[in-house]
């Protein structure tokens, strides 16, 4: 979405991690694609068939001039525009905490794609916890910068909250990485208590499946639903 919906992008650490996770030639939907930086990167480096959803007309225009296929819309209302399993990956970068219905959005991402790649700021990070504990005010950290009355982040959660929701939605965590500004992504066990303190932002790759396993997870090379039927995106 526009900058105001994606205020806390940890530089390009999540882009690099996404680039690492996405299979070459895959069909990718970037929800909140802004001016198309990530999509263009994915098209160039991975030869993906990319589509985007972007809330601002200016962002869509910028994408169009880069030759990207982008629809104006937002994650809450417009994921229904796409048929089920139209994509291999649906990406929602640093936006989940800003949507109205995170649970529905997450379920929708995994309706239209085999895998969802989701990143968000971790409200369990030690900076957030200590800021709240010491100042008694809503945390103002390098990831969460806006005052409470103007922040787009209306549904903040901790790592633990997120893994609980994944379990509740019966989503399989295929990969998890901790992101910190200026540092490369670090693979992590998302249910380890310490990570909930350490990870400033988190990035997950999810698929439909059984509840998450506790062991550290690497991206599996083969989708669990390899027997999927051909769909409308050729």
């Amino acid at each position, binding site marked *: 979405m526009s900058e105001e919906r994606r205020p806390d992008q940890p530089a390009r650490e999540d882009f690099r991690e996404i680039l690492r996770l996405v299979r070459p030639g895959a069909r990718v939907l970037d929800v909140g694609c802004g001016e198309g930086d990530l999509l263009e990167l994915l098209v160039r480096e991975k030869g993906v068939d990319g589509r985007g959803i972007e809330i601002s007309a200016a962002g869509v225009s910028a994408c169009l*001039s880069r030759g990207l296929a982008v629809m104006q819309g937002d994650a809450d209302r417009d994921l229904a525009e*796409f048929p089920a399993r139209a994509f291999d990956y649906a990406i929602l970068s640093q936006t989940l905490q800003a949507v109205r219905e995170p649970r529905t959005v997450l379920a929708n991402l995994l309706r239209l794609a085999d895998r969802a790649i989701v990143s968000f700021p971790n409200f369990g990070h030690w900076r957030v916890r200590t800021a709240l504990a010491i100042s008694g005010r809503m945390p103002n950290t390098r990831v969460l910068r806006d005052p409470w009355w103007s922040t787009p982040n209306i549904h903040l959660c901790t790592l633990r909250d997120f893994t609980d929701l994944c379990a509740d939605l019966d989503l399989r965590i295929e990969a998890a990485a901790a992101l910190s500004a200026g540092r490369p992504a670090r693979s992590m066990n998302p249910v380890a208590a310490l990570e909930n303190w350490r990870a400033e932002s988190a990035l997950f790759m999810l698929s439909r499946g059984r509840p998450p396993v506790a062991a550290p997870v690497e991206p599996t090379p083969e989708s669990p639903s390899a027997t999927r039927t051909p769909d409308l995106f050729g």
Partner: protein
Amino acid sequence: MRIERPLRLDSGARLEQVEIAFETYGRLNAEKSNAILVCHALTGDHHLASAHPVTGKRGWWDRMVGVGRPLDPERHFIICSNVLGGCMGSTGPSSINPETGEPFGLSFPVITIADMVRAQAMLVDELGIETLLCVIGGSMGGMQVLQWAADYPERLFSAVCIAATARHSAQNIAFHEVGRQAIMADPDWRGGDYARQGARPQKGLAVARMAAHITYLSEAALQRKFGRELQRDGLSWGFDADFQVESYLRYQGAAFVDRFDANSYLYITRAMDYFDLAAPHGGVLAEAFRGLKSTPFFVMSFTSDWLYPTPESRTVVRALNAAGAKASFVEVESDKGHDAFLLDEPVMDAALHGFLGSVAASRGLP
């Protein structure tokens, strides 16, 4: 241009020796890969960016055509033709029926949007062009774009559909019926035979235009432009045009009859009412777009357009996505209503410029 092949119509009728009036801008390149077809709206014509022969006014999309603009004659070969059924040179109800030597009048067969597109495709054939770089149009022009996508998907490198719909709604049909009834209620319409009888149903056509014109604007735009402003000081306590908005509409109606034929208005509005792109595909719009493959397809709507509101465009986009086309969509913020697509809308210009630039680049054009 005269099309020598007979034109088969959806109604089952055939038209012989169809004339298609058209204009081109720019030069067709050696590969014939830079042609853009622009489709006009209900009362438009092929004077895209040239002075209108009757009114002397600038072309209807003059602002979009020019060096450095989205439609650039230095880069593109731009084609715009008057639709079948029109009255500006293409065969229509006011044309002379070659069989009788008299104007067709109501003996002209009922036509459809698909018939208009079939005639355009024949023109494109005659120009020696296999694949169009882009087909672009707003309102009824956008319907033609959608029809092109359904009937000639392999001949489109890309497409742009602005402020349009994949089918006419009950409200759309209702407004058109008001217009047609106004024309047919005019005694000078003479059962459609006015041309032979030396009459012109100007009053009826003007009323039709007045009613339609309201649908092209938005309440906010009308209010901003006219409010309750009066023409003169005080009320007339009669039925003169007291309010500026009345005077405006009367002027619009009166000016329209100078440049448009009443029977053409009947036929073209009918074609729009009959338009339902999904109907021949079992009601599944995505099926109509099956042939598109990964054609870049740009759909645009305007927030204040209540004639073809944004949900209509979203329906098109959803079907395009389901069919696998490379659909892009923008809803332009504007209070100018349906006619915003003809007016100064920088967001529309920028989006169109970006889209056409990228499709040209991906076809290896400068």
